[in-house]
């Protein structure tokens, strides 16, 4: 294997979108037969760069060489022809097709107008044997878990003859065990002569798996380092220009009063299976209860049930001593419940509306924002300015529409709105998902301060570092029920990962 020859060389790449320069002066050298990580914060320009390499758009300046040959990619099919394949962060699979059908879709071997399934099957079995992956080719994709779907995506790319694989945040959706499996597959592929470009912002993984690391900051490549020549904190510094924030630490004590008590909640699912099965927990004053779990294991239904948007078929919810099992969402919100929803665009914001209407949403029952039956716009705007100020939302004013803000600032606004109604129970679902590190630190800080002031928090997150760091107690949700109780001291990502994939906790007491 020629380690010194370059599989991909990008020189002086510049990509502009109207009003923004997404990439400028980007230089990237990927040695053949290596795993090359590209790290950077959300919004640093990693995905833009990879789209350039995959031919999804054309750069304004700069050159692309593949195995020493100068290339111009007009479309992804040009890139595929050059042996480049991309495994997207969001899988692009047809659920009701089998694995085999999905893999050959768009690249079917055809003879005499007929699809040569057997030929494809043989070729795939070959590929699977070589790369050490295994997926049941005849299983419908709808039956597969996330990790297996990702393997299908990788096989799809290999089937098209890719020798250079781009993986866009491949571990974002995986539990730790699946990550390990993915990495061993990647090593097999590399040993077999493939080259892998691995995009991530998870530094531990990057340091474990890669041979070379290129750091992108503010749209340009700022450093190229070797994993053994750099520490985690040094890498973080390169990425953001400062130390990584940490969710750890608390100065206050958990109070004794029970703020929220959920008892035996069962919620009907789409089929015969219940979406939630006998879920029970309590949250005290000044306590953060973390719920870890792979998305789609009942967390959403749990939130909707506590908010009152979904009616449980069994069980009860008591908040501050009031049984609210049958209360309207409005009543619950008015009696001190707040909710940072899963998806800020779908459930949290009025994107076309100005920020001050967004900070008013859900709080319009507060007499300070009313003048008789009318909205007191001046008061609502003043309050909005205060939220913007206190939560450091970067915006020219409270009058701009919400869509004009970056994701991190939208999220800060949302967190600010929810905390400004002075709740005593807060449900925080993925409070820092998709925000940059600066906003993440700010949001953690605000949540901690609110908790210290007595707020009871139900924290739902896929970010295990966040769950372990912020929580006072951790529950793991799997398949609609709670299958483990842990303290943050005993919780490790690996242990959580075991429970998140259905591992059964041994009862100690």
């Amino acid at each position, binding site marked *: 294997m020629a380690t010194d020859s370059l599989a991909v060389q990008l020189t002086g790449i510049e990509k502009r*979108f*109207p*009003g*923004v*320069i*997404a990439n400028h002066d980007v230089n990237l050298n990927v040695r053949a037969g290596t795993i090359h990580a590209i790290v950077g914060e*959300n*919004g*640093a*320009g990693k*995905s*833009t760069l990879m789209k350039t390499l995959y031919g999804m758009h054309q750069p304004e300046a700069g050159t692309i060489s593949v195995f020493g040959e100068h290339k111009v990619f007009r479309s992804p099919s040009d890139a595929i022809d050059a042996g480049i394949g991309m495994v997207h962060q969001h899988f692009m699979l047809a659920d009701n097709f089998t694995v085999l059908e999905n893999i050959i879709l768009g690249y079917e071997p055809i003879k005499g107008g007929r699809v040569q399934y057997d030929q494809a099957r043989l070729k795939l079995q070959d590929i699977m044997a070589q790369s050490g992956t295994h997926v049941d080719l005849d299983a419908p994709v709808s039956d597969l878990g996330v990790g297996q779907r990702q393997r299908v995506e990788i096989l799809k790319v290999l089937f098209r003859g890719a020798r250079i694989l781009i993986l866009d945040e491949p571990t974002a959706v995986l539990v730790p065990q699946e990550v390990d499996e993915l990495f061993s597959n990647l090593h097999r592929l590399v040993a077999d002569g493939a080259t892998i470009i691995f995009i991530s912002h998870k530094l531990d993984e990057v340091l474990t798996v890669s041979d070379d690391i290129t750091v992108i900051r*503010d*749209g340009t490549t700022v450093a190229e380092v070797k994993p053994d020549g750099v520490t985690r904190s040094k890498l973080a510094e390169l990425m953001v220009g400062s130390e990584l924030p940490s969710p750890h630490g608390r100065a206050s004590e958990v109070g004794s009063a029970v703020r929220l008590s959920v008892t035996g909640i069962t919620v009907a699912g789409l089929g015969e299976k219940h979406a939630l099965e006998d879920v029970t927990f309590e949250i005290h004053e000044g306590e953060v209860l973390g719920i870890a779990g792979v998305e789609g294991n009942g967390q959403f239904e749990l939130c909707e049930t506590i*908010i009152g*948007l979904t009616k449980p078929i069994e069980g009860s919810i008591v908040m501050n001593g009031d049984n609210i099992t049958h209360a*309207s*969402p*409005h009543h*619950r*919100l*008015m009696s001190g419940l707040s*909710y940072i*929803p899963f998806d800020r665009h*779908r*459930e*949290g*914001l*009025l*994107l*076309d*509306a*100005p920020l001050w*209407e967004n900070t*008013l*949403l*859900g709080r*319009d029952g507060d007499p300070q924002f*009313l003048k008789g*039956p*009318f*909205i007191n716009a001046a008061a609502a705007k003043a309050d909005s300015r205060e939220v913007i100020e206190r939560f450091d939302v*970067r*915006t*020219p004013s409270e*009058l*701009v*529409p919400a*869509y*004009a*803000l*970056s994701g991190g600032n939208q999220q800060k606004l949302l967190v600010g709105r929810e905390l400004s109604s002075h709740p005593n129970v807060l449900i925080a679902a993925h409070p820092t998902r998709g925000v940059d590190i600066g906003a993440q630190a700010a949001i953690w800080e605000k949540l901690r301060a609110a908790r210290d002031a007595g707020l009871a928090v139900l924290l739902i997150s896929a970010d295990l570092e966040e769950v372990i760091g912020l929580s006072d107690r951790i529950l793991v949700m799997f398949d609609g029920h709670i299958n483990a109780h842990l303290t943050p001291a005993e919780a490790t990502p690996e242990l959580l990962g075991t429970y998140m994939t259905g591992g059964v906790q041994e009862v100690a007491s």
Partner: protein
Amino acid sequence: MSEPIATEPNAPSAEGTSANAVSKLVSLFTGRSQQSALVTLASSLAAVAIALVLAGILLWATGKSPFDAYSKMLDAGLTNDKLLETTQRATPLIVAAVAVAIGFKMNLFNIGVEGQYLMGVFWAAVVGAYIHLPSVLHIGLIFLVAMAAGALWAAVPAILKVKKGVNEVIATIMLNTITLSIIDWAFQEQFRYEIPGQLDVKTKVLPTTAWLPDLVKNRLSSFIIVALVVVLAFWLIVYKSKFGFRLRASGANAVAARTAGISSNSMIVTSMVMSGAIAGLAGMTYLLSTSHAYGPTRPEGYGFNGIAVALLGRNHPAGIIVAGLLWGFLDSVAGPLQIADIPQSIVLVIKAIILLTVVIVNEVVGRRVAKRTADRTAAQLTLPVVAA
């Protein structure tokens, strides 16, 4: 009424939140409304101008001079008589457009205004003829009956939507047809009032206490004042009140509104009922000022033209008044054009092209403005220019 535009540049719109195709269509009509008053005005005027040019080409292609036609329209339309007629014709359209706009603000497409105002006219005519009250009370009661009839009729699709998920577009279209059958049956079988020796078939004529006075005799009904009050109330309720905020929030993002404790089902029912109640008033010029009874000369098309006026007026109070007057003007010059040997159907063509261009121009301008706002916000923050 120009002030409201300036104070409300950032109202949320229904854009981008709806999943199914019909709702997408609705959001296409309701458009984005976060842009400034000036941009809104300019884009609407541009749409009208483009429509006039296109209609001109059409006229030219059929061998008529567009300049001739347009100057005839202006000559005929800008006389005192015709301006009064413009206002008179605009009145029901403005009321109907407000009814439609209430729905649009909640992301509901109430195509049923057509049926709702006919229900209003018919039942108000029936009830009004059999009661005797002092004039103000009599007229007030007739308004209430008309509003109740429209509201009840609009509640049907609302309840179907809330309980059974039936799309309101489909339900209201079908109810329009059903309306005609019900009214025809009730009229023919129950409430036809035969006056011996007269061939006129009508419901019983209203007592004179129920007649609305004219502002200008036989030219302009005082109902225009009621219409303006309706527009003002619309502005206050939808744009300024807490209820209106919730309504617009539900329309802009039903899921987020629900999450914020606003029951979208109750908003759907309330806004449809309000829409129907206002729709019920659209036919009152005809009933109380012109005909004083329900008969085969009943008005037609207020509902559909109301949709057009709401659309052209961007669901905004001031916009609706201006658009209503434009529609009234076009209707009032159709006759004189005919006399000048220019087919009056050109008026219909102009209206149709205006609608299409408005939808297209709204969409194009809306996207541009959204993009520019985002860019400008980023620029104002002087953040590093980096995209994801």
